[in-house]
Every structure is written in C-alpha cells, then in structure tokens.
C-alpha cells in the first residue's frame, strides 16, 4: 500500500469510527447528567 493510501485509510476510518465512538460516549454521559 502507498503512504497516501495508509494516511487516508487512518484518517477516514479513524475519523468516522472515532467520532461515532465519541458521540456515543457523549450520549451516555448526557443521559446520566439529565437523570
């Protein structure tokens, strides 16, 4: 794999999956706060 491909694989997959994980954690935290 080229360096560009590895970079964009980490950027795109990490960006989307990482942001989803962050949003899910934030949802759970807010749920606890609002109880």
């Amino acid at each position, binding site marked *: *794999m*080229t360096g*560009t*491909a*590895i970079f*964009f*694989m980490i950027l*795109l*997959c990490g*960006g*989307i*999956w990482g*942001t*989803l994980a962050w*949003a*899910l954690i*934030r*949802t*759970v*935290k*807010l*749920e606890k706060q*609002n109880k």
Partner: protein
Amino acid sequence: MSDKTKQKVAFTSPLLMAISLIAGSVGTGNIWRFPRVMATNGGAAFIIAYVIIMIICVIPLMMGEHIIGRSTRKSLPGAFRDFMGSKKATWFGSFLSWVVVITIAYYTVVVAWIIQYFVMSLTGAAFAPVDVEGRQALFDSISQHNVLTVVLYIAIQAFCCWGAYRGIKAIENSSKILLPILFCCVVILAIRTVTLPGAASGLNFMFDLQPAKLLDVKLWLEALTQCLWSAGPGWGICIAYGVYAKKKDDVALATTVQGLGDMSVALMAAVAIIPGLFAVLGEEGALAACGGGNNGLAFISLTGVFATMGMAGRFFAALFWLALICASITSIIAMYSIVIQPIEDMGVSKGKSSVIMGVLTIALGIASAWSMNVFNNQDFVVGQAMVIAATFSSIALMKFGLERTRTTFLNHPNTGLKMGKWWNVGAGPVFLAAAVIMFFWWCGLYIGWEPDWWKPFGVYSLGSMIWELGIVAIIFAVLNNKIADAMGKKYFNGKEFPDPVELGQKDEEE
C-alpha cells in the same frame, strides 16, 4: 383506545433512541450499494465527498426532520400540517407517507431473495453454478416468477408489520439485537477479506486519494445520491422516531450518531467487500463486478468470491447474507412504524392500522416479487420519489424559519452539541439546491437510457414515474382537507417540545 392497543410513547433512553435510528437507517444501501458506488467513483475521493455532504447538509436536514416530529408529536401528514401552520401542507406528509409505502412494497422483495441465498449458502447450493452464467441463471430463477419468493415476501412483510405493531419497545429490542449482529458479521467479514493474499491492492485502490477526482461533478452527485438513499431524509424516519423522543433528549447528538453510524457501517462494508473482490478477481474483475449493479455484485460476483474459499466460504457467505437480513429487517420495521402512524393519528386502533398498512403494502409489492421488470421500475420510481420527498422537510424548515428552528428547538438547554448558523444554510438552501440538481441529473440519465421517456409502462421510463407519482399527488390533493381534519389534536406551539403523547388523540371539542 383500549389498553391492549395502547403503545408506550417514548424511547427508554437517548442511547436506545440513537441505536434505533442507526438500525432504521442502515440497510442494504450501506452494505452493497456504498462499496460498489465508491469503487466505481474514485475510492477515497468519493468517501471524502460523501462525508462532506453528510456533515454539511444531510445530517443537518435530519436534525430538522427530528425537530418536526418531536415538536408536533404527529405522524407525517399531521406533522407537516402543524409545523408549517397550514392545512395545505398536510399534502407533503401524505405524499411522503406514500413514498414509504411503495418503498416497503418493493424493498421487502430483496429480503426474500437474501433469505434464500442465506439458506443456499449454508447448504452449498449457492455455489453449485461454476461460472457467471450459471450464477446469473440461479439468481434469475429466484427473482423471476418464483412462488417461494412471493411466499417469503408475504411472510417478511407480515413479520415486520407485526414488529412495528408491537410499538417502540419492539423497535428498541429488535435494534438492540440485530444491530450488534450486523456489526459483528461485517467486522468478521472485513477481518477475513483484508487478510486474503492480494487484499492490500483493494485497500490501496480504496484509499489512495486522486485529488483530481474531487473536481468531477458526477462523483459529487453520486455521493449525494448515496447519502440521500441511505441515511434517511426522504423517508421520514427522523420525523417518525422524533415523535417518540423525550422532551429533554438531545436532537443534534442523536441525529449525529445516526448519520455517523450509517457512514460507519457503509465504510466497514466497503472494507469487507472491495479487498476481497480485488484478491480473488484482480483489479479489472473487481471493477467489472462493481459495475454490474447491486444485484450483480451481491448475487453473482460475491457468491463467486465466496465459492473460491471452500467450506469456509459457506460460513462467510452466510455471515454476509445475515448482515443484510439484519440491516433490511430493522429498516422495514422502521418504515412500517412510519406508515402505521398516520392511520393511528386518524383515531384507528394500532391493530387495525397495522392490518390496513400490511395488506396494502403486500398487495402493492406482489408484482415486484413476481417480476424483475416491475421490481426495477419500482426501484427507479422510489429513488426519485425519495429525492422529491426529502425536499419537503427542507421547505418546511424554511417556512417555519431556519434561525427560529435552530435557536428555539435545536440549541435547547439540554443539548450536548450546539449548532452554529452554518446549520441554517446546510439544512435549507444548500440541501434544497443539491436535491433539485440531483433529481434532474437522474431524470436526464433515465431519458438517455430510455429515449421513449414519456411512455408509462417502460421499466426505466420517466413517464412511469410521472404517471404513478402524479396520480398519487392528485389523489392526496383532492383528499387533503379530509386528511388534515382527521389528523386530530394539535400539540405544536412553536416554542418548546411537548411531552410525548399517544397518537390518535382528538381535539377536545370533537
């Protein structure tokens, strides 16, 4: 309304609401359409365009749709009536509901095929044909004039209608079970395919960005199409599920999770499919497979790829079909809950509403289950109808006021994700302009494919869409006032979200 038919009126928690929204959004479009379109439209450049469009205008519009549902606590026709403050606007919701009805009617056919391929993968019958022609013949025998397909189609419809009838708790429970199964299947497939010899060339093809491709207008239109047909604007899921959201739940965060979940599954599915195709078929063969349409990719090419893996191929093929079954069943249950709501809002019991919609959608889709030509025609009509329907929410938000929507409902005190003024532009004019361009672009493509476009009975004839949707539009226009009056009590006050209520409540004076 008797106790038996009373439904629970709100999601148990914001997390379960977000999971249910993801489960509703994720469908076959993520698993077999996204990888195919991504591979034939520039790989990484397509993914970048797809992510940008989702963030700039599709997720913002879905937030707006969620607000329409939650602030009105009504089914689609009533929601548009109240949010736009006009009886005439009921028509938007009626038309949108119809789009969902015809979507269920043809989309369920795909699940009937998938279940047969799931069983045939386990028994090995799916791998009996040794060449492309043989696999095509097998698919034709299942998709054309097959009694078992029709029987399965009716059974799946009945099952999903029953799931929606069971209410919001059943939707939560099915999402809790089926979404993790879907994730696990796709992750296991991805791990297997990226470890195949030669799979790295597929990953390289996917992620080696060619910046010049970002200047290709077609790439952006394809990315917009994928966002619209996959994520959910245009079939009302955010409006319908917003009805069940609690007053304090976070709109922006829940819808962002929905959009990100939809993107995550699509990307994971691409990682699970494209490297496998490259490893087994080589670059030329893989691109030819992706160019063969959704059915060609899944039922012909991928079946061929799994066949090369021996006994393990049966297991991985079964996982692939299981992932598709989970994805599509949760979507169909979500769609059923959307179309049952308007009948309930008219004061009909949930049981009767479910039977009415079940019988109607089964009757409408039998022809698609029997004939591939009808199926292909409906696939095309629904695709275009969804684009039209998606613009309605954008128009409704503009009518109420985008800034007013943002400050009053979106950035409410309990939100964990505040939206800036850019949201007004994305959910309003940018989305509307993009959807209009996309609609006419597809019309142009269909006219190119079928020059006698005005004919009402051609498979890909624009005329068939105009006739079908035109007649429905006129019927709803004629019945508009009656439907608006039947929608019952108004909860929308333009200032705050009302508490969740049971559908079908009448005005006190009635």
